[in-house]
């Protein structure tokens, strides 16, 4: 039905099956859209946020998807600037994941602000001293970079590529890509860092506050570093999940191994820096404000010391230890465990730097307010997930996302042209799952 759109040399399931399998995802998407419009029309009273939790699930989701989407800028940096040519086999997917993460972050921000129609004030009336201003500018610009990076892939669709202008445009953009990638890395360095700075500059909140260099608190550098370290893990994790769902090998193991190795060493160095930062904060910074380390982890129903162990040991030291060893990263099960733990680790870090910052009482006569999200918040947070699945599914089906797919999955027929029209039931991979990830 849609054979003409499917890339040459690869096989996809029939369109009706593809669409049907995406049904549940569309249901979640619609649920999220309904909640989104409820928030826009009725206001943020639809959430469980309150004056103690001005930042909550959404801001955590924002920080987390941007950290996880860091795989795009770091892989791009390694591929185009450092010259790790092997990564060309995963860069498309990394860019796609990054594009989804950043568009999701912008969407969530548009729901999160109390007056969405005034969102442009952050640019127009910019306060250049605010970390959030830097986040907004760099995030929006970098989303532009990701669009520029994703566009050639769209232009490489078989039918679009037939148009001479688009063919040349795609070709030219590939040529200029190192410049775009360098600009993206520059912007990413600042907005990833500024997101860390958002919490680090809060000198009224000893739990978040950190010293630093000039205007940048240590969290600025830790966030950039962690995004570069953990982002590629998310890319690997999603690529592995895509392989599981499509029941195909899409990227060669040596590509995974290279990215995992770099990510592992980044993570190992990051986690050491994080431990030093935590130690200094615990024995110097926080006590200077009159608050002892354990005050931040006791006298409440949720935030115990377990959260620090989960973040640093389970989500940091262990995955780093696995990824820096050859055996660890080349054993599929261990690699998967490592990337999943890493994703949990960075997500917990962002949670702590948003939600726990809000929860820890500063005034001596206030207690720990607790928070759980409303269904509208959950639905709008799942909305980008559903949208992401759809975009990956459609991109995988119609665009040459994985350059090694055809080589790794040779079609058992002589002609590419006939291969596209062969139905799934006629081939060896009769039970091929739909192309969703």
């Amino acid at each position: 039905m849609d054979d003409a759109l499917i890339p040459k040399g690869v096989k996809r399931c029939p369109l009706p099956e593809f669409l049907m399998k995406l049904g549940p995802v569309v249901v979640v998407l619609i649920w999220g859209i309904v909640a989104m419009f409820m928030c826009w029309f009725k206001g943020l009273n639809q959430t469980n946020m309150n004056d103690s939790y001005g930042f909550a699930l959404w801001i955590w989701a924002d920080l987390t998807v941007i950290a996880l989407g860091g795989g795009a800028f770091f892989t791009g940096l390694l591929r185009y600037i450092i010259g790790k040519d092997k990564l060309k086999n995963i860069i498309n997917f990394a860019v796609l994941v990054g594009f989804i993460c950043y568009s999701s972050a912008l969407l969530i921000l548009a729901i999160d602000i109390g007056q969405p129609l005034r969102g442009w004030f952050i640019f127009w009336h910019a306060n250049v001293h605010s970390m959030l201003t830097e986040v907004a500018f760099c995030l929006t610009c970098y989303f532009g970079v990701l669009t520029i990076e994703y566009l050639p892939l769209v232009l490489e669709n078989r039918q679009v590529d037939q148009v001479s202008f688009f063919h040349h445009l795609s070709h030219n953009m590939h040529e200029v890509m190192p410049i775009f990638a360098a600009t993206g890395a520059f912007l990413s360095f600042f907005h990833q860092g500024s997101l860390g700075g958002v919490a680090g500059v809060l000198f009224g909140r000893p739990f978040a506050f950190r010293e630093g260099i000039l205007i940048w608190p240590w969290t600025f550098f830790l966030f950039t570093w962690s995004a570069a370290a953990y982002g590629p893990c998310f890319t690997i994790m999603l690529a592995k999940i895509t392989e599981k769902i499509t029941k195909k090998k899409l990227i060669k193991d040596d590509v995974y191994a290279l990215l995992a190795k770099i990510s592992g060493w980044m993570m190992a160095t990051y986690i050491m820096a994080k431990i030093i930062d935590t130690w200094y904060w615990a024995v110097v910074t926080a006590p200077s404000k009159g608050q002892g380390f354990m005050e931040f982890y006791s006298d409440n129903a949720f935030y115990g010391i377990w959260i620090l162990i989960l973040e640093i040991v389970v989500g940091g030291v262990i995955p780093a230890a696995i990824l820096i060893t050859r055996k660890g990263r080349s054993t599929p099960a261990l690699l998967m465990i490592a990337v999943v733990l890493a994703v949990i680790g960075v997500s917990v870090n962002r949670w702590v730097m948003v939600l726990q910052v809000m929860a820890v009482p500063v005034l001596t006569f206030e207690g720990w307010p607790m928070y759980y999200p409303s269904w509208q918040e959950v639905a709008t947070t799942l909305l980008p997930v559903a949208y992401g699945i759809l975009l990956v599914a459609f991109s995988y089906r119609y665009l040459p996302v994985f350059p090694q797919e055809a080589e790794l999955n040779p079609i058992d027929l002589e002609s590419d042209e006939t291969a596209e029209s062969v139905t799934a039931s006629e081939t060896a991979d009769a039970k091929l799952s739909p192309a969703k990830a």
Partner: protein
Amino acid sequence: MFPFNFEWIWDMSHMVFMGGLWFALTILGLGMTYCVIKAAIDAAKGKGGGHH
């Protein structure tokens, strides 16, 4: 964002921050303009399209 915004001050903070921003935007804008114009010229010249 622009010097004509009334809160704009020609201080170091604005020059560094906005300088970086406009520098990045200029690179992206020029890069894309180059790609689009070159693609239009190549397409008009009829250089072999359709396949890499």
